């Protein structure tokens, strides 16, 4: 189906990434946001609070991020498409409810506008410091989907995709922005509602008494209902059976946790979105994501001008990590260069995928600003030797 026109601000705009992400959520059909203010993400919820009364939905500023991150789960089981928005310190507080969202298969979108950490760190300055936390920060084995926009336009487009993916797979989906993408203003084209594809919730058509909330078919994704529809569902963070009832045996644990992770891990290839440029005959491939990809592009252009054969692979989907595609690229080039605004996070995934076949050079950065392209260029030159 296509978007509800009420939420779609069709036209050509000049927006920063935070505002564009908010418009993406509204276009995607998000009608319930719970949040807690934190720089540099606050503009997303400020705009939502301003826009939602006349779109038809609701915003509530909760008392903290623990509350915000579970209020949205209640909102999802009440039937709405939901989102919360935060940055590092708030993300840390949300970790327990990321796990609850995952094990209860509650569709929800988290926007994380990354800033420098640890702790209060650099509230107003960029980093890509939460890439591992979103994947590993909640306890237990779990999977997420994470998207990394590098422009306000992508903040709009990928927020819509985040909502569609969370409905399709029923896993939490993250939009991994950063302070620069969040605050840079660029042209954002918002299409007609009829041109925006929307994935509906997988509502069950089964009658009360026949529906079991965690029965699955071949794709391992259960159908959903909402409170008030007569199914008398039970939803628990305990390990549960197909009825949703607690069942705390090693056997059920194995069955549930493998189904949940399988639906994402086994579909990692289908979820992969890498924008490749000049990788076919490259000696060196730069692997980047988010804001760093724009700086990396500048470095790649300079390297090519200097006569080097350099490709650029930009990860739009950062989780699940596209290991198969990175391995395929590694089989054709001599080295990889991974710039990121942290002291080395996604580079570990690249190295796992490459498995020692070629050198993988990190261009690290403690955050606070973006890389100097020259530093990336130096590394490319080093890798090409």
């Amino acid at each position, binding site marked *: 189906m296509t978007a509800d026109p009420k939420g779609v601000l069709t036209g050509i705009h000049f927006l920063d990434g935070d505002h564009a992400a908010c418009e993406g959520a509204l276009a995607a059909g998000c009608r319930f946001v719970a949040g807690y203010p934190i720089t540099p993400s606050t503009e997303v919820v400020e705009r939502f609070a301003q826009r939602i009364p006349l779109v038809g939905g609701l915003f509530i500023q909760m008392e903290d991020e623990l509350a915000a991150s*579970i209020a949205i789960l*209640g909102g999802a*089981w009440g039937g709405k498409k939901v989102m919360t928005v935060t940055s590092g310190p708030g993300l840390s507080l949300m970790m327990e409810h990321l796990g609850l969202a995952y094990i209860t298969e509650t569709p929800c979108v988290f926007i994380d506008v990354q800033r420098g950490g640890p702790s209060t760190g650099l509230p107003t300055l960029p980093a890509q410091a939460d890439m591992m936390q979103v994947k590993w920060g909640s306890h237990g084995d779990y999977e997420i989907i994470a998207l990394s926009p590098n422009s306000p336009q992508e903040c709009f487009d990928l927020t819509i995709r985040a909502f569609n993916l969370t409905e399709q797979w029923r896993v939490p989906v993250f939009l991994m922005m950063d302070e620069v993408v969040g605050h840079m203003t660029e042209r954002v084209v918002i299409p007609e509602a009829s041109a925006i594809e929307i994935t509906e919730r997988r509502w069950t058509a089964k009658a009360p008494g026949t529906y079991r909330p965690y029965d699955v078919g071949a794709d391992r994704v259960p159908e959903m209902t909402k409170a008030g529809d007569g199914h008398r569902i039970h939803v628990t963070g*305990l390990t549960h059976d197909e009825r949703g009832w607690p069942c705390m045996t090693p056997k059920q644990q194995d069955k549930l946790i493998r189904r949940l992770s399988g639906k994402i891990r086994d579909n990692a290839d289908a979820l992969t979105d890498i924008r490749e440029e000049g990788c076919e005959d490259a000696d060196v491939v730069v692997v980047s994501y988010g804001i760093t990809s724009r700086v990396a592009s500048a470095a790649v252009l300079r390297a090519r001008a200097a006569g080097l054969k350099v490709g650029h692979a930009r990860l739009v989907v950062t989780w699940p990590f596209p290991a198969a595609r990175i391995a395929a690229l590694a089989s054709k080039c001599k080295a990889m260069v991974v710039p990121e605004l942290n002291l080395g996070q996604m580079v570990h995934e690249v190295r796992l995928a490459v498995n020692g076949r070629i050198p993988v050079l990190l261009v690290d950065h403690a955050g606070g600003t973006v890389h100097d392209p020259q530093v990336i260029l130096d590394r490319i030159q080093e890798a090409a030797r």
Partner: protein
Amino acid sequence: MSEAIQDDQDLSGMPMMDNPVMPYLRQERIPHIWCPGCGIGTTVNCFTRAIEEAASDLDKLAIVSGIGCTGRVAGYLNLDSFHTTHGRAIPFATGLKLSNPELSVVVYSGDGDLFAIGGNHFMHAARRNMDLLVVCVNNFTYGMTGGQVAPTTPIGATQTTMPYGNFENPASLPFLADAAGATFVARWTVYHVRQLTRCFKEALGKKGFRFIEILAPCPTLFLRRNRLGDGVDMVRTYKEKSVLRNGADTKEVGLGLTGEIVVGTFVDRERPTWLESMNDHFGKVFGDRYSRYGG
């Protein structure tokens, strides 16, 4: 129970009573996990009788629990039920209610869950007058984790993490609820089954942030450790020590290890709920352009 007791234990040999509350329970999940003499089951009995007498539309009644022995209540009631995280039942319920305002949402949890880890959420939901009925089974201890000190543990009571007796000042829950803005505040004990049932029924018929505290024995961890007898002894104590004082000043209803237990309805007032306030406000701001959210 303690966390060591598993839900998959074969208890099929246990007697099943022919009980009028059975239609309101998930019968295949009974027997429940609670210890003999535990007060939680009695409160659930009263709750189910109340929803029967109130002829509530059960499809529109949802229950949300946190984590703890009391937190297991949601799982046994044959309603849309949510067993969330420790302390966060109220913000989950807030999201559920706001997302689908036609639901009547009840939060049912323990004193540690609602007032230690969840205390901040309690305060803000009451302040906002979120349209929720919050039921707290107060057994003065952390049952699920084996009897540690709770924010309600009376001074002098021994708990595993207060091995020499509690020296920390306990909270008076009705006072907190009143101060934070709850529209209905009552306290009963598991001795008062008729009054509690009536109270549930009355509270279900009202709107706004409503709070019921129920004193209940935890024989396994609180009574035994403090030589207060068994569950039956405690119910007798509740009978002997309780004094009915409707409209009592909530400043005056604090509890000690011994001493009187003031019961009754302390607060009953009207305030617009969060949603009513939002709708009225946006109606004024936007005029005809605004359609009321949730009808």
